[in-house]
């Protein structure tokens, strides 16, 4: 059955040189579907094309008082109609299959690219851009593949009708054969300005959508503080611009539509006029006159189909260009080759950073204290290799390690870790060593009560960004997730900043046991955590100024004391 083999097991490796080539590549992946679509498109269109001839023959029979023949031709009309109906359906089914097959492929390509780019993607494009690519552009590319077979059918039907007309009357036939393509050319000068105005309209539309989406995203702020009217007025102004631009576009489109009535209509008038004169001379029967009229009127359909196809191909090219933009984004730095990488000499988990002078002993719980958020952000990104870094792991510079190896060995938990939508238990469906059970991790992160509070426990569906949870609840679930992953080196950025003091104290106690024998680095200034770490490194002015026990530093280092107690010297 159609659509049975979707989604694709592998969407393939697309050609991304030009939008046209990309579309061609997609078309090639579904050659068979397109070919079948073409076959049925032709049968359908030609079936339709032959009906005027049968009607003309019927009228001719009637005019000659030939009842039996008239009934016979009525039967032919019926058969042609049924054939056309059947073929029309099959054609439609292939059109849908073509649309969906292409659309699915693009969706799958996009998600694979997004998954590959990971942290680099949000840095390079706005989410909206990818959403636009996955929603609107996929539709436009699908539309192009949907109309392609229909267009081929239209072109072939055109030639079949032309041949019939030439056979009936060469002069009239040639007039039709030459005239119709000329007519389709006649509207061409309108297409370019139409496209330009459509582009303008889309720019305004994009702006309106962006404003609307932005307003909605900040709705809590607006409802809490105010300013709804301000933003509404701004949106309304932009919406009016879309309206004006759309009406401007409509002026050209209306002209185009009118021309599509006038030009073929003019043709029907001319053919009827010439045909009637020929009939007067006895060179054409009245049945043939009716057929000529019908054929000429029918030719409007293939003409329209081709125009429509031209539109859709243009839209698909624009859409492809946008998809290509996303698809050609690259990782910010070289990923390295896993196979060619030096075998790890040891994997104890020692970190050395010549830039700050930081040394993290393997298997220990180390805290880094600093009062400069920018400095800690940079250091975290360097430790996790989210930016250029001369940090070494067990003596090997991270820059020489393949990126995947670094990700596998070093896990960075951000300050505001993202909880993805889906069942709560899916949070723990991540690459993990299997040494840490989910229940144990939840207990260590003091997150058991978070799960208890969920209506269906771990099976509860969480909304995007875990919005139904408080910041503290999110932090504790995220910590449990990191513990389950059980990486060789775990870097935690303010893991308990939104957790209340009672719970923070509990987490501080449990963290060292949970990570026993593994290297853990926690960025924090909270005494409740610092109490329980093996060693504290104090980062100031870009260098590690002091290293030691929390209490020892508290006594000996005034700068440290000031940072940890936030200036409230005891």
């Amino acid at each position: 059955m159609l659509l049975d083999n979707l989604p694709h097991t592998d969407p393939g490796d697309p050609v991304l040189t030009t939008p046209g080539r990309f579309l061609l590549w997609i078309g090639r992946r579904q050659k068979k579907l397109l070919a079948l679509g073409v076959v049925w498109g032709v049968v359908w269109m030609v079936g339709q094309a032959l009906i005027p001839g049968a009607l003309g023959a019927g009228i001719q029979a009637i005019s000659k008082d030939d009842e039996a023949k008239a009934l016979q031709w009525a039967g032919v009309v019926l058969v042609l109609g049924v054939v056309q109906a059947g073929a029309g359906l099959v054609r439609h089914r292939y059109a849908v299959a073509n649309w969906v097959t292409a659309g699915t492929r693009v969706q799958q390509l996009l998600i694979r690219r997004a998954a590959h780019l990971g942290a680099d993607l949000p840095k390079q494009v706005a989410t909206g851009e990818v959403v636009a690519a996955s929603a609107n552009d996929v539709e436009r590319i699908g539309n192009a593949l949907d109309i392609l077979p229909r267009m081929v059918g239209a072109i072939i039907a055109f030639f079949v009708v032309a041949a019939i007309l030439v056979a009936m009357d060469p002069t009239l036939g040639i007039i039709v054969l030459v005239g119709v393509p000329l007519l389709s050319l006649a509207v061409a000068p309108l297409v370019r300005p139409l496209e330009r105005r459509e582009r303008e309209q889309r720019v305004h539309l994009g702006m309106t959508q962006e404003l609307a989406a932005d307003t909605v995203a900040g709705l809590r702020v607006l409802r809490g503080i105010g300013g709804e009217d301000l933003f509404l007025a701004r949106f309304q102004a932009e919406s009016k611009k879309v309206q004006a631009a759309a009406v401007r576009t409509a002026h050209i489109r209306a002209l185009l539509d009118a021309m599509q009535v006038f030009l073929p209509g003019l043709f029907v008038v001319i053919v009827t006029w010439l045909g009637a004169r020929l009939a007067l001379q006895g060179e054409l029967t009245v049945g043939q006159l009716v057929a000529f009229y019908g054929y000429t009127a029918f030719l409007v359909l293939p003409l329209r189909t081709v125009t429509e196809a031209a539109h859709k191909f243009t839209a698909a090219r624009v859409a492809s260009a946008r998809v290509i933009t996303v698809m050609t984004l690259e990782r910010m730095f070289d990923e390295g080759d896993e196979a060619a990488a030096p075998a790890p000499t040891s994997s104890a988990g020692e970190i050395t950073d010549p830039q700050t002078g930081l040394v993290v002993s393997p298997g220990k719980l180390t805290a880094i204290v600093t009062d400069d958020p920018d400095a800690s952000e940079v250091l975290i990104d360097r430790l996790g290799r989210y930016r250029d870094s001369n940090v070494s792991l067990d003596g090997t510079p991270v820059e020489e390690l393949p990126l995947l190896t670094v990700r596998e060995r070093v896990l960075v938990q951000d300050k505001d870790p993202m909880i993805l939508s889906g069942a709560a238990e899916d949070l723990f469906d991540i690459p993990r060593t299997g040494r840490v059970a989910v229940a144990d991790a939840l207990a260590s992160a003091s997150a058991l009560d978070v799960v208890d509070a969920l209506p269906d426990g771990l099976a509860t569906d969480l909304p995007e960004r875990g919005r139904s949870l408080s910041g503290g609840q999110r932090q504790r679930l995220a910590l449990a997730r990191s513990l389950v992953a059980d990486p060789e080196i775990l870097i935690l950025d303010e893991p308990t900043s939104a957790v209340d003091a009672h719970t923070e104290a509990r987490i501080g106690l449990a963290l060292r046991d949970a990570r026993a024998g593994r290297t853990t680095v926690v960025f924090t200034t909270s005494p409740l955590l610092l109490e329980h770490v093996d060693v504290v490194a104090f980062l100031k002015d870009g260098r590690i100024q002091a290293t030691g026990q929390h209490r020892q530093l508290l006594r000996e280092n005034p700068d440290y004391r000031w940072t940890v107690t936030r200036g409230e010297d005891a």
Partner: protein
Amino acid sequence: MKPPESLAQTEKSTEGKLPVSSPESVRRYVVTLLRRNRGLFIALVGLNSVAAAASIVGPWVLGGLVEKIEGGSADYAYVNEAALIFLCALLVQTAFTRWARIRGAVLGESILADLREDFLTRVVALPPGVVERAGTGDLVTRTTTDVDRLSWAVRLAVPEIAIALVTATLVFAALVFTAPILAVSWLFAVPIIAVVTRWYFKRAPYAYRHEMSSYAAVNAGIAETVDAGRTVEAYRLGDARVRRTDSAIKRWIGWERYTLYLRTIFFPSIEISYVLPLAAVLGLGGWLYIDGQVSLAQVTAAVLYTQMLIEPVDIILMWYDELQVGQASMARLIGVHDVPDPVTDGSQEPQSADLHANDVRYGYREGRDVLHGVSMDIEPGDRVAIVGPSGAGKSTLGRLLAGLHAPRTGTIDMGGVALASLPTEKVRRHVALVTQEHHVFIGTLRDNLLLARPDASDTQLWEALGSVDAAEWTQALPQGLLTEVGTGRHKLTPAQAQQLALARLVLADPHTLVLDEATSLLDPRAARHLEQSLAAVLEGRTVIAIAHRLMTAHDAKRVVVVEDGKITESGSHDELVSAGGAYAALWRSWRDED
């Protein structure tokens, strides 16, 4: 073939989300829209009628020609005259088509503008509690995808159907006028069309709605992957995200297949029903002509009219399909109008800044209260810290004190007026909930500040920025207050965004602030001036701080300990420390005095 999922299964996932309108309310809304634009609509019908009437002339001319030529009574002059009439009709049709299309676009665009503006107008007035629960994701989809789909329906489907309706009516009238007896042939088609259409449209709306929502889920999954890029990379979730999208695609394809099945029944039945009258007119016409009951002109014209009638009827049925899609989007767009507004009374005004909670009980779900009888009094200028373990109900209490939710039983009064009875716009003049969320809107920095006080002068804006220590970096920006910020524009650092949020509070100037997770708002390692910025904002206001950090509690005049939805301790820091309860134990461990 059955739908891929049963109703019960799929409806479950929509629970707790924003409502989708019923077909009836959609219809009512459309009628209202049309009524609002009645003049334009009537003009449109008139223009299209003239265009359609002109299109009827062709077959009539040809019928005459066939009759006269066959009867031998035609000459060149007659043929020329007929062609001229045909040409004139065509010119009229062309001119009126263009005119009608322009008017149609004007009407369509005005309706679309109304729709999206109505939608956003409603969205920005949603009760804050509803926004809090539904999240913004669904709303964003409605603002983008649904508006897009509806635009398509209104730009194309509605005018096509309107024109087709007018044309079909006039062509059929012409058929009846030409040869009433031949018009009877359509009786073959009508029952088939009626039965099949009924069957189809009984299933289609439901199926298309699910096809669309399952398609939206595919896109939402991709968007989330982009948004959470860093998390996806850190936890090596790439493969899992790919699998998730693939299975979302599979679900969507299931619905695609079902709707395709519906059309597989529908389309051919309809097409065959078109060809029946055509064959019938030809057969019946032939017989009646030979019998001498109709003229050749009548038969010819009737055949051509019957054929002409197929197109508009087809357009109506096919675009009806698109109209369904549009209708589904519309149901989601106007669904936001179905969100009930809490009953409020704008005439009351709090007489003072006193805040009293009396035996407050509240829960998000029936039968599961989070707060079990909380009472507290807050005087103007108070500094209250609410502490307690996670899940004790601190944040919930904060939201109630900020007027976001109404207590289930008990009362929360401000200056003698129940907070919940005041409209949101009034509540926030008195009290603001400050959370860790700090959205920077697309627009100038000025716009971002003005939202808090739309009539503020630039001097006031600079004062507000100055009071939170943000004037310096604002001045350093390329265009100062007029710098474009927000997604895709000049990016503010988190600290700057936080100061912006604080400056908004200074401008909004509520006398009471409820700080929830205020320490998350202020990065614990943040430069000290951020804390000074906050101190400047708190100056002279009543502050209720939900404290995750004991330092905040230490600074407060009064500390309230909440455990299991009840207040268990209350007093000054020193009192509580000397009382030796839960708070004292915690304080000691924090201060390292054991």
